[in-house]
Structure formats: C-alpha cells, structure tokens
C-alpha cells in the first residue's frame, strides 16, 4: 500500500497580527504583484490551493478602527479570477460569507471562477450574523446568531441546485430563499466548486461532516489533531460519506533554520514581530474588556479582573467565552513560567501549531503528524507577504518528496483532482 500523501494549501498572508509588516522584507499585501508572486510560488511547490480570507468590516477596538495589524483586502472573486490568468494548476479558494450574499449572484460568481480557471475554484463557507458587519449591507443584522448554520445550509443547497441545474427550471423555496428561474450557466469543470468549512462548534463540525470537501481546523498538538480528526470523520457515515471524502487541514506556521537552534531563534523573532508591545496590550484588552493602555507590556499582568460583560473588540471572532477563567489560567501560566511579562505571555498563548527546525526536521515532523492521522495535510500561514512561502517551497517540499509523502507533479488539472475528490 502506498504511503498516505500530504496535502498542502497556502494561506495568503493578510489581515491579522500573524502577518508581520515591520520586517524589511514585508511587501504589500494588496499589490497584485504580491498575489502573483505568492501564487506562482505555491504552484511551484505543487500546493493543492491558495486561500484568501475575508472580513467584510474593518475591525474595531475600543470603538475605533484597529490600527496595529495589517488591514485592507482586495475583492476575493476578482483577485482569484486574475490569479487564474497567471497560474495553471493551483486551486483558487476564498472565503465568501453566507449571510451577506444571495445565492443566485454567488452561484454565478463561483461558476464563473470555476469555468474561467478550468476547474480550480473553492469556497470557504463562513457564517456570520453580526449587526456590526451587517451595517455595510442592505439587510443589516437581519439574522439571529442561532440561524447562522440554517442559512449557510440553505445557501449551499440553493447554490448547489443552481450549479447542477443544467438548464432545468429552478423553483426553490426555503426559510431563507425563494428563487424561480433558469440558471444561465451549465455545470462547471468541477461540477461545482470544492467546498471548505472551518467552524469548530458542534454545529460547525456537523455541517462540515455533511457538506465539506476540505476542513480548516485549528487543533495544534498531535493528540488534539487526532481527536478532531476522529471526531469529524466519525460524523461522516451518518451522511452516507466515506472518511476520505474530506481533507482535514490544520492552520500551521513554520520557522526554518540551518540548525535547530537557528530555527528556534528565527521562530522567536517572528513571534516577537507578530506581537508588538502595542499588540500585546490590545490582545489583553480583548480578554479583559478594559482599557489597559497604562500597563507596561514588559510588566506583569494587571491585578484588576476582566469585565466579563464588556466587548471592546468588534469584527473579530472571539474564541474565549469566559474571560475570568482565561485571566485565571494566564496568571497561573505566567507564574509557572517564572513570571512572564504581558508580552511574553501573549506570545506564548497566541502561538499556533508551528513546525520549527531544519527543513529536514520540519518535513519529518509534518509527515509524522499526517501519518499519525492528526490531519491530511496543512494550510500554511506564512508570516510574510509575498515571500513567506519561498523557503518552504525551495527547501521543505523536496524533503517531503524524498519521504515519499508528497507529489512530484500535479496529476490532473482540477482542484478536485489534487484533493482526490469525485465530481459531484
């Protein structure tokens, strides 16, 4: 039996503090030339797909536009169509919101991308319902939070019906949508675009198990990865699906060096650049719900407790539901590590799954992770635009190939081919 193959996707570095802008090598995250360089490099590295994230309102912190992180994004569909012109095999994936779009237009846009890219489109379905984002759209905050996945499911059902209609009359009615008409485009080269899901709640996992072709997860350690992998794939048979019909890709960073210690140093340098003194305070304020600008980022955690009712950051997903418990945990952690400063603690606690080492070590660790069924591969989140993937492609990809775990050429033209998926 041949060895389990690793799938790689590339997250274009953009809006959030993971993207380091203070490095002399940091280029523009909005110039088209940055997208071209990044995409062509991912294609040289035989990646399954490139991925663009999206947020439909600029984040705010304490009532003002958040100014510490990289911000500003071009339109997802338009960039992906333009990238189809300068690549030949690379999949082209983007986040498109299921709440602030309508299925007829969205289905046409995705079908157009899939046709114009020769079958390389992927849709990361993101649900949101916040009135904050809604202020940029016709219907405002029209959706109740508990209806998010209902709408996402109905959106997907509606879009799928349009994509696969092939000239039949559509007469679709659900809670969210009423559509009557004939969709103007035939099924696309992939049948329809590849579907990606990333919600981690129970509802999100169920939705993923039922509908997704690929899943972005954020479970770091091998054990956490394995638990998620088992859980998610275990939910699939209930929907008549086989486990290999979903590719699970945790978000992963990396730091390379000629020696392990050099890599460790590089990794630490990147983490420090990602968490500037000001960013450390802003992160703390998110949890505390208070203005902490008077605190020294190189000093200890505040004595005052978080204000559990306050929500001072908007436009960002809040993963921590109980700020008092988080504060307690962080104080214990800072203590246990010999008295971490605020910034040191934020660097510690916001770390993602990361592979740090020589190219060979990183390749071996990644391979071990995938072979242990902690994932099917990774979505890499480089810290630099546009060159953040260069060294990985040049040095780690050949090592993965030597391990027999990574393709040496694309075997087909479409993203479904890269992911080993059947046409719907």
């Amino acid at each position, binding site marked *: 039996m041949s060895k389990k193959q690793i799938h790689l996707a590339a997250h274009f570095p953009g809006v959030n503090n993971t993207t380091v802008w203070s490095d002399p090598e940091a280029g523009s995250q909005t110039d088209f030339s940055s997208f071209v360089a990044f995409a062509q490099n991912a294609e040289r590295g035989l990646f399954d797909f490139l991925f663009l994230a999206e947020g439909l309102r600029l984040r705010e912190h304490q009532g003002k536009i958040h*100014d*510490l992180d990289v911000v500003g994004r071009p339109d997802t569909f338009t960039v992906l*169509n333009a990238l189809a012109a300068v690549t030949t095999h690379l999949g082209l994936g983007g986040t498109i919101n299921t709440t602030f779009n309508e299925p007829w237009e969205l289905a046409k846009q995705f079908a157009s991308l899939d046709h*114009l890219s020769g079958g390389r489109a992927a849709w990361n379905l993101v649900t949101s319902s916040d009135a904050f984002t809604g202020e940029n759209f016709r219907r405002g905050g029209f959706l109740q939070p508990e209806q998010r996945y209902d709408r996402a499911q109905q959106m997907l059902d509606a879009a799928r019906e349009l994509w696969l209609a092939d000239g039949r009359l559509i007469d679709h009615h659900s809670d969210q949508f009423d559509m009557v008409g004939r969709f103007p485009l035939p099924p696309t080269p992939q049948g329809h675009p590849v579907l990606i899901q990333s919600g981690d709640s129970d509802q999100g996992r169920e939705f993923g198990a039922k509908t997704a072709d690929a899943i972005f997860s954020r479970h770091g350690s091998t054990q956490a990865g394995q638990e998620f992998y088992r859980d998610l794939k275990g939910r699939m048979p209930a929907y008549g699906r086989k486990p290999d019909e979903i590719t699970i890709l945790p978000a992963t960073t990396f730091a390379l060096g000629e020696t392990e210690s050099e890599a460790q140093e590089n990794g630490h340098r990147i983490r420090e650049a990602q968490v500037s003194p000001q960013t450390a305070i802003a992160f703390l304020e998110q949890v505390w719900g208070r203005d902490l600008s008077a605190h020294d980022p190189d000093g200890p955690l505040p004595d005052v407790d978080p204000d559990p009712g306050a929500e001072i950051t908007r436009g960002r997903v809040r993963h921590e539901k109980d700020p008092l418990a988080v504060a307690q945990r962080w104080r214990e952690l800072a203590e246990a590590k010999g008295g971490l400063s605020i910034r040191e603690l934020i660097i510690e606690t916001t770390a993602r799954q990361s592979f740090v080492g020589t190219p060979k070590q990183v390749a071996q660790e990644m391979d071990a992770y995938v072979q242990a069924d902690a994932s099917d591969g990774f979505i890499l989140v480089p810290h630099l635009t546009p060159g953040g993937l260069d060294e990985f492609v040049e040095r780690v990809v050949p090592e993965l190939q030597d391990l027999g775990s990574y393709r040496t050429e694309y075997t087909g033209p479409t993203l479904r081919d890269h992911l080993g998926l059947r046409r719907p």
Partner: protein
Amino acid sequence: MTAHLAVEASGFGRHPRAAETAGVPPQALLTPAYHIGLAQLAAQAGADFLALPDSFAPGSGLDAVAIAARVAPVVPGTGLVPTVTTTHTEPFHLSKAVATLDLVSAGRAGWEVAVSRTEQEAAQFGRKPAAPPAELWREAAEAIEVVAALWDSWEDDAVVRDAATGRYVDREKLHYVDFTGEFFSVKGPSITPRSPQAHPLVVVRDEQDSLAVAARWADVVRIAAPDLAQAHALRERIRAAVADAGREPDAVAVLLDVEILLATDESAARRAYDDLGEFPASTLRVLGAPDALVDVIAERAVDGITAVPLTLPGGLRVLADEVAPRLLEKGLRLPADPAATLRTRFGLSRPANQFEGARS
C-alpha cells in the same frame, strides 16, 4: 480632439444567429481563451475600452467582472468595462469588485451601471418585486454615490507602517461613509484600499429615466440613435443635463453605439447579413466596407462610438485589421500609450478624495 473608440463584446455578437458564424462551438463562451482573444482584438484595434455586458436575465453568460479580471493580467492596452447591475446586488461588494479590477488591471477598469427591470430577474432573488425604471435609477444613483464614497474611504497614504507606535495604518485616514438613503444604508469604510485610478471610469447608457444619473455621475454616456443627426441632438441634450447638474460638459464623453457588420465591400457585407437573416437595428448600423465606419466616425457628430459587432470574433477582427489603421492614417485616432489609465484616455485626472482633510 480625436474620436473615442470603444467596443462591446457580448457572446458571439449582437445578432441572434451570430453563433452560426463564430467558427467555434457555443461552449467556447465559457472558456478564458475566447474572451482573451476578444480582448486582444480590442487592444489591437486601439480601443479605449472593451465593454462586457452582463445582467441576471436569462441567456446571460459568465460574470463580466470575472471575465475582465481573468483577461486583465494577460491582455494589456485596453480598458475593461464590465456591466454591473445595482438592483439586486450589494453596493459594498460592487465597490470592492470594481476597485479590485482596477488593481489587477493597473488602472484600466470601468463600471457600466445598469438596472434589472424584469419580474424574471426579481424572482431569481426573491427579495423584492420588479420596480419601474424611475425607481430603479434612483436606487442606481444611490449605489453610485455610495460606491464612489467607498472608493474614497481610504486615503492614498492611509498605510503608515510606523514601528515606533506599532501602527500599521493611520485610522484618521480611513473614513466611515455613513450613507443612508431611500434604499439602503452603508457604514464603511471599504475593506479595499483606494485603487490606482481611485475612481474607475463610470459608464451609463442613455435609457428610460437614466438621464439624471448620467448627468450627475457618468464619465461616459452610451447612446443609441438611428442616424448621426439624431445622435448629435441627443449629445446636446445630455451636455445640457450635465451642465444643469453642475458639471463641465466636456468632462463627459458621449459615445454612439454603432452596430457593425463589415466586409471588403458593401455587397459582401450585405450578403453576409442576408445569410444571417433580418434583425432589426437598435441604433445606427453600418453594413459595408471598413471605410463606411471610418466615415461615420469622421463626421464627429458625437465624441466617439462604441462598435457593437453583429458577429464575433469576426467583427472585432475587421475593426482591428481594417478600421483601426485607417483611423490612425486620417488622424481620427492617435496611437495609444499602452501604460495609460482608462481615465487618462478620456482626459480625466485622478480625482481628489472627497474625505481628504475630514476626520473620521
């Protein structure tokens, strides 16, 4: 002043039986190669822009912004003007799509504004019934206003990358648009920074109830008229409306749609038309030799034309091979600067930012 030349590329051409002469199967319309070929011909013809019609009506094809974006990186030398409707779409999405087309085309983007009139289109969205043209164009005016505000919602120098303060962006240079109108409200700012042209070229067709919107917002007005005298009269009416709206009439180019089927001589063109079958003209039509179209342009009754081939890609090929060289020879067109932005081609500067100096 030389004459403007735009070309429209819709499917296999405006004639309903054009597909029979295209020389490629109908599925070609779904491939990038076909659209790249058309754009290359438009660039060869020295066209100021390629208009890409689109709608949600049955029989429409691929999304026009998508086609323009797919073509932009590989075909330099011509503007790209997709139609984007304002009736069933979100102004916020629209503003960033067109701004991003401007980004990927290095300043060659435009936007032809259109409305969706039919019950059929309304039923595909299921959100609201079809409305009369006057209402649709009032909504379109709001859409253009908010889109233009979103295009300005980032000042050009908003990104500061100031390591000393840890700030990537100067939030004083990002602006809420705080638009509230009859049809929608939009908070802003855009998620997309200001584009190379800042304001991609705005194109409006003269149609029922669109005149006020064209007068207030258009950089280019497309008109239809059966002959040059009527086209000229219409141009005068539009210029008067532009002046009434408080704008300089010379800042707006009025382009006459001219349906074309050109061949070596008039009888050959006539035969080609007879083979296709009778099809009523919706504007001035030139069936004849390339010189017949050159003569129409030379009359200077309007600021230029939008050539609408009855058949594609053949109609564009004749334009590129036969008409364009004659226009240069006669001094009716000048060789285009390939690096020029679309606004530059229309003598328009990069606009000042409406929010500059204001504080959010």
